[in-house]
C-alpha cells in the first residue's frame, strides 16, 4: 500500500482547521515578515545614500530579508505543526490510524508552504508601494531561490522534529532558534567573500549561501548563476535525504521508548 493523498490532505486539513480557528495565528504569520521588511526597507533607504554597494541594487537588503523569511518560515512551518501534535498529545491517535510517517511529513511540508506564502506574500506586496521595490521583478530565478530556501527550511525543520522526538519538549526552543545559527554563514546580507576563509568553506556547504550569492549576482550583475543554483539544489537533495533518514531513525527510537504515547510536557 503506497502513500495516500487523502491521508496527506486529511492532515493538511487538520492544521488548516487549527490555523483558521485563530486570527492571532494568522496575523502572526504575516506580522514578523512585514515588520522585518519595513525595518530593512528603511535601512536600505538610508544605506542607499551612504553605501555605493547598496546604491547599485537598491532592493538587495529587502530581497534578502524576504528570502531569509522563506527559509525561516519554511522551517518553522514544519516544526510548529509538529509541535502542535506534541502539545495536544495527539501523536498516539495519529499513529494508530493508517497514517504513515512519510504522509505526515508531506503534510507538514505542505502546511509549511501554505504558512510561508501567507507570511511572505503580504510583506513582498507591501514593499512595492512603500519602498518602490518588487521582488517579483527577479522573474523566474525567484522561483528557484524560493524553492531552494523552502526545501532547506523543510529539512532543517525535519531535523528539529527528529531531535524533539528524541529529547521531548525540552528541545522545543530549537524550533525558534536553530535556524539563526546558520544566518551568519548563509551570507544573507553580505557576500560570502566577507567571511574568513575557513568560514567560507562552511558557507559553501549550505544551500542558503548559494541562493543568496545567486540573488546578489542577479541583482548586481543581472546574471543568473546556474552554478550556484545547481549547488543549492544538489546540496538540498543530499541534506533532505539525510534528514529523512535521521527523522525515520528517531521516529523508530520514539516507538522503542514509548515516546509517541508520552508526549506533552
Amino acid at each position, binding site marked *: *500500500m503506497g502513500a*495516500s493523498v*487523502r*491521508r496527506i*490532505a*486529511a*492532515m493538511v*486539513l*487538520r492544521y488548516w*482547521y*487549527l490555523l483558521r*480557528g*485563530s486570527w492571532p495565528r494568522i496575523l502572526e504569520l504575516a506580522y514578523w515578515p512585514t515588520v522585518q521588511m519595513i525595518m530593512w526597507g528603511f535601512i536600505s533607504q538610508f544605506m542607499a545614500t551612504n553605501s555605493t554597494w547598496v546604491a547599485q541594487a537598491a532592493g538587495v537588503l529587502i530581497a534578502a530579508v524576504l528570502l531569509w523569511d522563506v527559509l525561516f518560515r519554511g522551517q518553522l512551518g514544519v516544526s510548529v505543526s509538529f509541535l*502542535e501534535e506534541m502539545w*495536544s*498529545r*495527539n*501523536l*498516539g*491517535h*495519529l*499513529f*494508530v*490510524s*493508517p*497514517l*504513515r510517517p512519510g504522509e505526515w511529513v508531506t503534510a507538514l511540508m505542505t502546511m509549511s508552504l501554505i504558512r510561508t506564502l501567507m507570511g511572505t506574500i503580504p510583506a513582498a506586496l507591501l514593499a512595492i508601494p512603500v519602498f518602490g521595490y518588487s521582488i517579483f521583478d527577479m522573474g523566474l530565478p525567484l522561483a528557484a531561490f524560493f524553492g531552494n530556501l523552502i526545501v532547506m527550511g523543510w529539512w532543517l525543520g525535519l531535523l528539529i522534529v527528529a531531535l524533539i522526538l528524541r529529547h521531548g519538549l525540552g528541545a522545543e526552543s530549537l524550533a525558534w532558534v536553530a535556524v539563526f545559527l546558520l544566518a551568519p554563514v548563509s551570507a544573507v546580507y553580505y557576500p560570502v567573500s566577507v567571511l574568513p576563509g575557513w568560514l567560507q568553506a562552511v558557507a559553501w556547504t549550505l544551500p542558503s549561501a548559494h541562493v543568496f550569492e545567486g540573488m546578489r549576482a542577479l541583482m548586481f550583475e543581472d546574471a543568473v548563476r546556474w552554478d550556484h543554483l545547481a549547488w543549492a539544489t544538489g546540496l538540498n537533495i543530499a541534506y533532505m535525504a539525510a534528514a529523512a533518514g535521521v527523522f525515520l531513525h528517531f521516529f*523508530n527510537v520514539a*516507538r*522503542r*521508548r*514509548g515516546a*509517541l*504515547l508520552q508526549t506533552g510536557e
Partner: protein
Amino acid sequence: MSQAVIKVEGLTKRFDDTTAVDAISFAVPAGTVVGLLGGNGAGKTTTISMLLGLLLPTSGTIEVLGVDMLRHRHRVLTRMNFSSPYVDLPHRLTVAENLTVYGHLYGLAGVRRRVAEIAEALDIAQFLKKPVGKLSAGQKTRVALAKALLNKPDVLLLDEPTASLDPDTADWVRTYLETFRRETGATILLASHNMLEVERLCSLVLMMRKGSIVDRGTPAELLERYGRDTMEDVFLDIARERRTGGVADAAD
C-alpha cells in the same frame, strides 16, 4: 472456540533494566470482549501500545486479523481503532473537525454522513461545533469513543475507557460498548482496573501483575477459583500476591 483475532506469543518489553511486559502469550477469540486486568504498572497500557504498534516490543510476536503487526501493521490499521484517556484529541479543533480529520485518515466513504451518524449514536450531536477542550470529562470520553468507533472497527482496543467518569456516564459507555459488540461482532480488548466493568463486559479476563499474566479465565471461573464473591476480591488476592491461580501458562 472461534478463531483468534489477536494472537500474542512471548511478548516482552524491557526499558533499560525494567521489564514492563514479560513474555506474555494470549489469544483473543473473534467477537469477544477480553479484559486485561491489573493494577497500576501491571503492563496493561504497555501491552495495548505494542498491539497497536505505538511501542516496539523487545521480543515476541503479535498477529492481528492474521497480519504480523511488527511487519505489516498498515494492512490492518483501517480495521482497528483505539481509545485512551491518556491520549487526547486536539483541544482547539471542534468535535466535528476532529471526527472529519479522522474520518479521512481512516479512508471512510461519506465522512460527513458518518460523523453525523456516530454523533447521533453517541449523543454528542449538540457538541459538534464545540472545541474539544471546552467539553467536560464525560463529553470528551464520548467524543474519544466516537473517534474510536468512526471506522466501525473489527478490532477495538480500549485503555481504561471509563477512567475518571461518573457512574452514570460510565454505565452509559459500557452499555454502548455492549450494543456495539453485539451489533457488529467486533472484537474488543479492554484494559481496565475497574472490576465492575470487567465483570459486566468481558467473557475472558487476563489478570496481569508486574508485566506477567498471572491468571486467566471467565469472570465466573476466576470467582470460583479464588473462592470469592466479587472480582474486586479476586483482584486484591492477585495484586497482593495472596494467591495465584496457577494457570497463567496454560494453553489458550
